[in-house]
């Protein structure tokens, strides 16, 4: 075995035996931050049904608007009957008094 290979093995063995730093206590403030984020994420989740409802309501309102606009365009308006009557009246008058 090459000397550097032996040295490498010894270094690895020694590194593996190094005591691990105890990490039982979280640093100050970390727990609070994690829990605050968890709470905020929960509030976001709670607001999802409300957002869905609002989205559906907006879609329905837009649909009603479009349908009513289409209906009003296809249906003869209240003015068109009067125009027709005036036109007929004009035709009659012209035929009686040429």
């Amino acid at each position, binding site marked *: 075995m090459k000397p*550097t290979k032996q040295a490498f093995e010894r*270094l690895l*063995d020694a590194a593996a035996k190094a005591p691990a730093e105890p*990490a039982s206590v*979280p640093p100050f403030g970390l727990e609070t931050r994690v829990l605050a984020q968890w709470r905020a994420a929960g509030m976001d989740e709670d607001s999802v049904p409300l957002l869905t409802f609002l989205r559906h309501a907006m879609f329905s309102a837009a649909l009603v608007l479009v349908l009513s606009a289409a209906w009003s365009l296809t249906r003869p308006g209240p003015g068109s009957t009067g125009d027709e009557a005036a036109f007929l009246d004009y035709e009659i008058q012209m035929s009686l008094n040429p």
Partner: protein
Amino acid sequence: MPELSFDVAACAERVRRRDEDAARALFRHLYPLVARLVRSHLPRRTSQEDLVQTVFMKVFANLDRFSGTVPLEHWVSRIAINTCLNQLAAEKARPELRWADLSEEQTDALEAATAGPKELDPGRNVAAREIVEKLLAQLAPADRLLMTLMHLEGRSVAEVRQITGWNVPVIKVRAFRARRKLRKHFERLMAERV
């Protein structure tokens, strides 16, 4: 809450029902595990605290998807490891370790390692660990992870498979190559010795 009586599954279930005390208890129970994993695989430019926080947010956000077929600790370990791997992958630059970068204790530990066939004095173990961690920082994230798990933490192939989700042949081949690469970095460092 005493550690022995801690019912992880019940606690996780309470967290799913948005019980804050349970979330706190779960955090305290899992913190040592997560902190140890994050510290072992910590990218150079990321703070340990930030990464631990990220891991916990992923754990809490995905708790509904935890099926319970494996122990919660294994599931959390995998999340922690993957988070660290992603962060390591984001840090593309891996500067080369030079002899001049080592402290006096570290050069002494290296001299002792090359001096003879004996084991290093236990007082030099921490310095040896620091050198190995610096050498590991030059490896690709997956290689670094394997070397840390298998050679520094002494985990078996089966345990590594459980943590990473990789299959056994991949782990063995990758670990062999990673060890060879690490030795080359070590030899390069030793060649600089005056």
